[in-house]
């Protein structure tokens, strides 16, 4: 579904991505995991076509998008949805206006059809009744849900999540992770980037650990736990630590 072949990217002298290759299958939830500044968000921006790589190729389906112009990207972008790290919602607009924004901009739907679509999406993300509320009056968790709702407005085949739970409390974070799984069940291929290990383990069908712009290891959670790679072991150490803490019930002391 999505394939990165030897992708490199640098800004001035700083190397962001160094010869990265990744493959994501249709329908799966792929998580790109790594520390802050590892180049995770850059991968998403390259996959969406917001940035072009310096070298290498990016395939969406069988189409190489690495050198496509903005206008050539338009039809492909209609098949994608993206949830930005900071939500990127239009804060002077209401929930309904945000979710319907791009449907009105590009869609050929009638007003009544757009309203029905918005209601259906808001119901799916459990935000019924918030249509007329302005974005700046919502909590962080609700904003994230609206960002997901907006990304779902075109029924995308691929949906990208950039740090979906950053800044949220554990309860809201869990509800967002559950929502990502439910979105995936609708058939969309999901790609999430995060630095939060528990999120990655919780939702990822496959994980790709990246560090300093290179892919360190790709595989399932079990593959990661069995890895002999020092960086992966260090990164996953917290899982063992948490498991040990829970086992010894140290939280309750």
């Amino acid at each position, binding site marked *: 579904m999505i394939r990165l072949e030897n992708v490199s990217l640098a800004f001035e002298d700083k190397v962001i991505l160094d010869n990265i290759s990744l493959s994501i299958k249709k329908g799966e939830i792929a998580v790109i995991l790594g520390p802050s500044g590892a180049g995770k968000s850059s991968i998403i921006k390259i996959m969406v076509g917001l940035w072009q790589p310096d070298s290498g190729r990016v395939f969406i389906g069988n189409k190489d998008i690495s050198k496509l112009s903005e206008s050539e990207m*338009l039809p492909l972008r209609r098949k994608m949805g993206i949830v930005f790290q900071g939500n990127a919602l239009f804060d002077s607009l209401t929930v309904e206006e945000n979710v319907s924004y791009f449907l009105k901009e590009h869609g050929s739907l009638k007003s009544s059809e757009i309203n029905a679509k918005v209601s259906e999406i808001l119901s799916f993300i459990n935000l019924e009744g918030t249509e007329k509320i302005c974005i700046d009056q919502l909590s962080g968790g609700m904003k994230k849900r609206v960002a997901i709702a907006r990304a779902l407005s075109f029924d995308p085949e691929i949906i990208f999540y950039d740090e979906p739970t950053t800044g949220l409390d554990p309860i809201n974070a869990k509800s967002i992770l559950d929502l990502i799984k439910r979105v995936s069940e609708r058939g969309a291929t999901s790609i999430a980037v995060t630095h939060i290990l528990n999120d990655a383990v919780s939702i990822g069908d496959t994980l790709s650990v990246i560090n300093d712009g290179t892919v360190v290891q790709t595989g399932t959670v079990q593959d990661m736990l069995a890895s002999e790679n020092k960086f992966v072991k260090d990164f996953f150490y917290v899982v063992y630590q948490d498991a040990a803490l829970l086992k010894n019930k140290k939280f309750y002391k």
Partner: protein
Amino acid sequence: MASTITNFKKKIYTLQEYTFMLRELFLSLKYVNKCKRDAINEMYLVGSQAFLLVLLGGAFMGIILALETGHQLDLFGAKNLVGRTVSLGMVRELGPIITGLLLAARTGAKNASEIGAMQISEQIDALRAFGTNPVLKLVMPRTIAAMVMFLPLTAVADISGILSGMVVSKLSLHIDTSFFWHSAISALLMKDIFVGFAKPILFAFFIATISCFYGFQTRGGTSALGKNTINAVVVTSLIVLVLDLIFTKVVWELL
């Protein structure tokens, strides 16, 4: 030396980026119908809401021009020429310049800060990611609105300048109002009006596009936003002055 070369390269690169944005703007002209509603909204914001500012700016310019020239001309017994001096000064130069500078500050700051804030909060990326051309969506309506509204605003500045000059000439220099008005109007030739009203269109184009460009160039946090907003106002103000000089020189030599 190396840093000077790097800085020069950056300036060239910035100019190149601005040129690309203008190219995108011209290529988007075929979709101009799509931004009709946004353009009308912008016209209200950059035009109607700036009415009082421009009215007062023009009025004070007219008063100062009448007082300064009136007292000097009086020394030669030529204070009756104040009317034509004020009208020519306002229509040819001060009307467009004061409107350009006031709007470079007001509209320039508005465009750069709005688009800059959208850039920082990834809203520009969101527009692109969901298939909307940010230049068509954000730059086109602002440019159209500025080019349409700067013209009547310049007329407001000109008229308020001439009228306030007339009032102050009556009160301070004891020049008859009907004489002032007649000499002011009869002094104006068609080419004065052409020059006076062609300038705002040119100013508007550069104020709108340069300030939007600075908004797009914003990277980082709020300090970068502040810095780019200042840069937008400074550069657009300078451009207004430079364009005025070029336009005056070229047009007066051609016409």
